[in-house]
């Protein structure tokens, strides 16, 4: 049958597009895939879209830059270890780089989540999906799986680089084992980051079909609450006058992080992870002593609340996403 295409006169191909040629119709007798495989195909397509694969060069620029930026700390850490064999690694597996990671993910999610969902909303393509053998919720679920995989790649590949680079430089099975026991939980925290940010990003991006508005719909709430949470906890920490020998940070500093996914994820790691991450400076308020530095967990004893908030945000985002696509018109 493929010879039929070649049989069309070139003159016709060049000029008259309206002519219909008798090339025969062939029925499809081959395999038909079921719902799970269709969802898988859509998820993989979404993953590719998130990195601009199969699109033009322009679509690849930002994902590639962000990916390179995300890998940079791992590479620097490995290089530093190589140059100074005495050094330990500079960054941890669980929080990675605590400012860079949220920043890169903020930009990635804000730019790419709209690419996955707002196009189909804007062009009213969804009826074409719903008229196919999948269910209403399969579309958002496939998009979520695809975008979670994209975020996972962005988060976990640098960790993998860090782990491979580090174990290649440490000596002895014990050191390698130690690295691996830290790497494992790091991967799990990374997965928590990926699934929460992907679902929050998609539910916000699916609010509108206009890409620019969708970018704002993702970026503004995430950024504003992040800044607010960070500022609040900093202010609370710096105006904090601890009395006695208590090592807990003020409640406001611990609770401020609950309003933003990034700080919730950091709080989750802070609660479950081992090392205290903040330093509380205690000078007892009379200004004449050198004071005292104290290591503490930022979440204080509110750690479980961060676990709950993580679950609440995740359920709300996924539920919102499913509800969004149940409501969308099939006109």
């Amino acid at each position, binding site marked *: 049958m493929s010879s039929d295409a070649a049989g069309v006169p070139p003159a016709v191909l060049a000029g008259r597009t309206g002519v*219909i040629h008798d090339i025969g119709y062939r029925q499809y007798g081959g395999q038909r895939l079921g719902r799970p495989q269709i969802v898988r195909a859509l998820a993989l397509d979404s993953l590719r879209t998130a990195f601009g694969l199969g699109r033009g060069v322009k679509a690849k620029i930002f994902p590639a830059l962000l990916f390179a930026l995300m890998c940079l700390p791992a590479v620097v850490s490995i290089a530093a270890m190589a140059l100074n064999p005495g050094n330990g690694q500079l960054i941890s597996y669980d929080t990675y780089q605590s400012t860079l990671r949220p920043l890169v993910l903020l930009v990635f999610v804000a730019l790419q989540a709209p690419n996955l969902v707002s196009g189909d909303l804007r062009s009213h393509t969804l009826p074409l999906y719903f008229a196919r053998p999948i269910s209403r919720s399969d579309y958002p679920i496939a998009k979520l799986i695809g975008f979670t995989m994209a975020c996972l790649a962005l988060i976990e590949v640098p960790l993998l680089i860090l782990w491979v680079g580090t174990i290649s430089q440490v000596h002895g099975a014990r050191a390698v084992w130690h690295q691996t026991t830290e790497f494992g939980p790091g991967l799990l925290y990374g997965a928590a980051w990926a699934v929460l940010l992907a679902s929050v990003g998609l539910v916000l991006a699916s609010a509108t079909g206009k890409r620019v508005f969708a970018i704002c719909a993702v970026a503004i709430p995430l950024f504003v609450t992040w800044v607010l949470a960070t500022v609040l906890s900093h202010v609370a920490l710096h105006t904090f006058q601890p009395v006695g020998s208590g090592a807990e940070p003020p409640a406001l500093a611990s609770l401020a992080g609950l309003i933003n996914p990034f700080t919730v994820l950091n709080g989750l790691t802070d609660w479950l992870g081992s090392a205290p991450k903040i330093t509380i400076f205690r000078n007892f308020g009379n200004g004449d002593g050198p004071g005292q530095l104290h290591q503490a967990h930022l979440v204080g004893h509110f750690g479980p609340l961060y676990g709950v908030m993580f679950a609440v945000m995740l359920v709300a985002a996924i539920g919102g996403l499913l509800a969004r696509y149940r409501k969308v018109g099939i006109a």
Partner: protein
Amino acid sequence: MTGVATATAVQEWRPAGEAVIEAESLTMRYGATVTALDQLTVRVKPGVTGLIGANGAGKSTLIKILLGLLEPTAGHAAVLGHDCATGGFEIRTQTGYMPEHDCLPPDVSATEFVTHLGRMSGLPATSARERAADSLRHVGLYEERYRQIGTYSTGMKQRVKLAQALVGDPRLLLLDEPTNGLDPAGRNQMLELVARIGSEFGISIVVASHLLGEIEQICDHLVAIEAGRLLRADTISSVTQASSVLLVEVDEGLAELRAELARRGLAPVEYQRGLLIELAEPQAYDTIRDAVADLGLPLTRMEQRRHRIEELFRADPTLTEMTGATSVQ
């Protein structure tokens, strides 16, 4: 139809079989006030069927129920032997749907888009590519299929919409206003294409349209609905025999002609800038010709009127009703 024998389990109601579409007392209400479909009972046989009705008559609602995307308020429907309430997946595997409105992304090529939707129809990657290429060729898109859809004309976009409905090798195509937005040439090409798919590809087609002229050209059967109710379901030929009305236009002397025709036993009715004359018998043509010639009037048009929806929607259209209905427009 092969799918008929494997009808899915239905509680009490069971589709009879040989029809591609069956609806029984199908009712769809939105809220308390809007009734889109009202006790619609109809059977659609294999072949090309026109689904005709004015905008808002319930055509699109019916299509959505048939695809299993909307649950009817009451009644039953079956497509290819599958109950729409329970067999949505089977129906959507075997049915291609072309929506009325614009539904194409501007920033991908037709090939990519149709291939992707082929995959969404359950085709493996390689088959999806092959069938996308085939479908686009069938609808007459060649080199331009590698261009972004945003650069296409309306006619080309309509072809892509048809190609995506065709890509999954459906047994039934549901086309919602396929000629929407096309110029007369594009309209004819699209209609030829639909007719060809119906006759040569062996795919049953339901074409929803508000233009009877189009349905007349390509369909074997016709289902007319108005306000969600079945008006007529019949073969095209039996419907087109129903009425014959001639429109006569003269540059001047309309009143004289009207008087003259009335004197000769016809019942002309003024309509826009001409006269509408019901033709009871073939000699009426001669009578009109003679009247115009005797009066020496400049005849500009003498035309067999195409049926309008409003005519069809009256079992026995009279000219007064016709002019009344059209002057409202």
